[in-house]
């Protein structure tokens, strides 16, 4: 047979050409060549200076990450396609992976991509989530890693600390590089804090091949309808209740392990637009992530408004703090005194009108709250003045006379901006009556 004469059926030929030859051809052509291609591109690449060498603890954390198969479900590369850049941040570049042996790119996503994880969540959040993911996300299917803790999320052992230290490095190199290059900026947002302004340009994400971008900035506001609140209620139960509590009392299952504690939402009569803003940016310096950008969140503008409207309704669950049971009666003179005292004690941080823009505000993490937009009830202001807020720059002012404390509390109530939310929502045809009813129910609950 001809084929035989050619040798293609001879053992030596098969072993040398098919066995060794083609294997080596592939290894050289599609193994070594891309490899040298990458090396060549990275040679003298200034960006690689931003890639940190891991500390021994972080390296141990990486080993634990590998040992427990984290890389099976959590990929570590952001593709320039689909929802990747919007969900997980800037598209991955080859230089970011310098010093990685082996790579942890992964071929699977059961949980979110972790390339930019450290920009989404602080360590205390990671600890709670690692201890039992269902304390944060009730539907999560991630395993609980109890053995990395000595009994509670507040007490990580060496394994837990190492793993979280490693997670804290993910995304840092790219962040530094982008800050140095100016494509990422630190911007102070009033009442929110210093946020990283992500690589959007004119509302458009700067990623090649990605055109169908959701315009979060310019997203139209949706009306405050019953269906919006129902959607908000669903999302609140899924995403918020684990920290802020089902009634918004700030006592979710995860709350006690977070510093600062999650905000007691029902103590405030929020402006919806402010809730939207917090959901959009998150609160730097706390465990509150951005619900637009955090890998596991990714709510749409519509969802953010829905949650905002639902959070407004939580005030009906408001309780009276134990320390504020016997208030001093509110008088015009007292409010005036409060104004003067607020200017003395509070304005340096919270700003003259309580908008979270005092002279010290930009230096503080977390930043002072915007009292005008959050509109807390006087009793809870009094409570906070007494106790301060652990994990923030807000100290206890219990040394001030009781009268002054009540005076400031009443004054803070007057800082509230007029709620236009109800008007704009009512402008939607056919919704007026329902909104009015809800508002009445709300106010009666408050009284």
């Amino acid at each position, binding site marked *: 047979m001809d084929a035989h004469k050619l040798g293609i059926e*001879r053992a030596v030929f098969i072993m040398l050409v098919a066995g060794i030859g083609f294997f080596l051809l*592939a290894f050289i052509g599609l193994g070594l060549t891309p*490899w040298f291609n990458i090396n060549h591109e990275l040679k003298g690449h200034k960006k690689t200076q931003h890639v940190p060498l891991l500390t021994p603890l972080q390296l141990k954390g990486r080993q634990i990450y590998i*040992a427990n198969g984290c890389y099976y479900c959590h*990929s570590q590369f952001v593709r320039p396609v*689909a*929802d990747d850049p919007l969900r997980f941040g800037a598209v991955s570049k080859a230089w970011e992976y310098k010093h990685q042996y082996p790579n942890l790119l992964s071929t699977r996503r059961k949980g979110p991509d972790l390339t930019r994880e450290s920009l989404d969540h602080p360590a205390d959040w990671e600890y709670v989530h690692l201890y039992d993911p269902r304390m944060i996300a009730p539907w999560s299917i991630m395993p609980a890693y109890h053995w990395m803790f000595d009994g509670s999320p507040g007490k990580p052992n060496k394994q837990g600390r190492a793993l979280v230290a490693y997670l804290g490095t993910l995304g840092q190199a790219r962040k530094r590089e982008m800050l140095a290059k100016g494509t990422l900026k630190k911007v102070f947002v009033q009442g929110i804090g210093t946020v990283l302004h992500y690589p959007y340009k004119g509302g458009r994400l700067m990623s090649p091949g990605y055109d169908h971008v959701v315009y979060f900035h310019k997203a139209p506001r949706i009306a405050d309808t019953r269906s919006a609140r129902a959607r908000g209620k669903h999302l609140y139960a899924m995403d918020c209740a684990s920290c802020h509590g089902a009634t918004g009392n700030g006592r979710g299952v995860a709350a006690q392990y977070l510093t600062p504690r999650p905000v007691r939402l029902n103590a405030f009569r929020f402006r919806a637009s402010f809730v939207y803003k917090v959901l959009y940016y998150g609160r730097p310096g706390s465990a509150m992530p951005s619900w637009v950008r955090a890998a596991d969140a990714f709510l749409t503008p519509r969802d953010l408004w829905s949650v905002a409207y639902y959070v407004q309704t939580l005030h009906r669950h408001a309780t009276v703090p134990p320390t504020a049971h016997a208030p001093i009666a509110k008088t015009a003179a007292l409010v005036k005194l409060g104004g003067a005292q607020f200017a003395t004690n509070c304005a340096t941080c919270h700003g003259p009108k309580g908008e979270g823009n005092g002279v010290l505000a930009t230096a503080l993490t977390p930043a002072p709250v915007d009292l005008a937009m959050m509109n807390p009830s006087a009793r809870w202001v009094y409570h906070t003045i007494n106790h301060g807020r652990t994990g923030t720059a807000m100290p206890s002012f219990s040394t001030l006379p009781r009268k002054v404390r009540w005076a400031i509390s009443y004054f803070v109530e007057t800082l509230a901006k007029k709620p236009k939310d109800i008007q704009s929502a009512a402008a939607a045809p056919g919704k007026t009556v329902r909104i009015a009813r809800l508002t009445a129910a709300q106010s009666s609950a408050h009284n």
Partner: protein
Amino acid sequence: MKRSETQELVAGESLIEPRLIKAHIAAAVFWLIYLIVGGGLLVAIKFTWPNFLGNIPELTWGRLRFVHTQTVAYGWFVDIFLAAIYYMVPRLTRVKLASPTLAWFNFYFYNTMVAMGVFQLMEGHNLGVVWMEYPSFINILMLISYAALAYNFFASYLRSQERNLYVSSWYMMSFVIWATLNWIMGGLVPAYIAPGIASAVVGGLFIHDLVGLVVTPLATAMIYYFLPVMLRRPIYSHSLSLMGFWSLAFFYPLVGIHHYYYSPIPMWAQYIAQGTSFMLFFTVYTVLYNVYKTMKGRWGDLADNIALRWLIGGTVFYLMVCTQGPLQALLVEQPLIHFTDWVIGHSHMALLGFGTFVAMGFIHYAWPRLTGNELNKSLSEWSFWLAFVGCAWMFIDLWIAGLLEGYYWGYGKPWMDSIVRLQPYWLSRTLSGVMVLTGFILVAINLIVTARAKQPATDSPAVLAGAR
């Protein structure tokens, strides 16, 4: 292969080491059931009940998943491939195994290594290279096994007087070389030599070489050997066999980068991987055309011949998985299905559908001839249909789940929405897995019952019928 040669292959009972082959088959079936129970099933249950057995580090999802995948490749497949090699090679070369002692040593040594690998993975010692998770000391020790196999394997061919190499021999020869080279490449390069993205480049090659140059060649060798033997008729076309083999040898090593599409790997390499992946159509269709032409007029045999049915069932899955593969390796498909359960469905169809079914064909053909007793017919029927229906159910379930997952992500739904939506599919997948497992447990029972049946081996009607 001429008709007369086919007869001789059936007859060559005196050349083989029946006990060695039986031992490897038994070990392989043990690993098969172990990897489903101790790996796949527990892992699948944890999708629905994440706290199930959750407080024991050794039994968490991440560690058991390694046990599942590693035992598939290196426990079940390599063991059954060794059995097949020991069954086929002496007949093809007409010489006995050079050193049965070495082969027996290798049996104990290799399976000890696999068991140790399971233990190490559960203890959290992991190399971190996808599909190469055994810690390095096991990887190095396993090279002894490859050397032992290579010695026995090539000694057979060197001492053989046979001038013509049969198709299966081409595949097996390449397998021995590819498996060794791939083992060295995967264990060494991504974890120690290639940094960062280059590590993913080589890791990608390794992942696909494991499927394409380890599982596929040996499964194809089995098809080319056992199909003519079962049908007592030569393969339809020798030229097609040649084309199938050489296109596999050329294209398969070049496709691995398709595991990391849209990663920072240079785009030109991804385009080449896309092209070569698409060329696999040619390879697979050539082989399968050859197979189905050989089957022409004999499809009725499937009704009685359980071994043939497993084998042909495997080729049907091969046809499907390799129609799916080149198409889903197109860059346009990737934004939607990459990272999703679709790929899990695909890889299960390759290894569980194609590889395992073909290997089951070998087991069901060889076992009666090795033990001299006929398999229990009712158990055979039940095991085949449970496994077949269970597999089909699992694959379809995972494809639907994968598409849903992809669309949920692509339409910008919150992450948790996709998890909640997929819960029923994961439960259904677990049930399909139980069905497949039941089928394979029945296979194991069938093998045990057959081996223990007290019938004189020499004048058993089954053997006489088989040798006719």
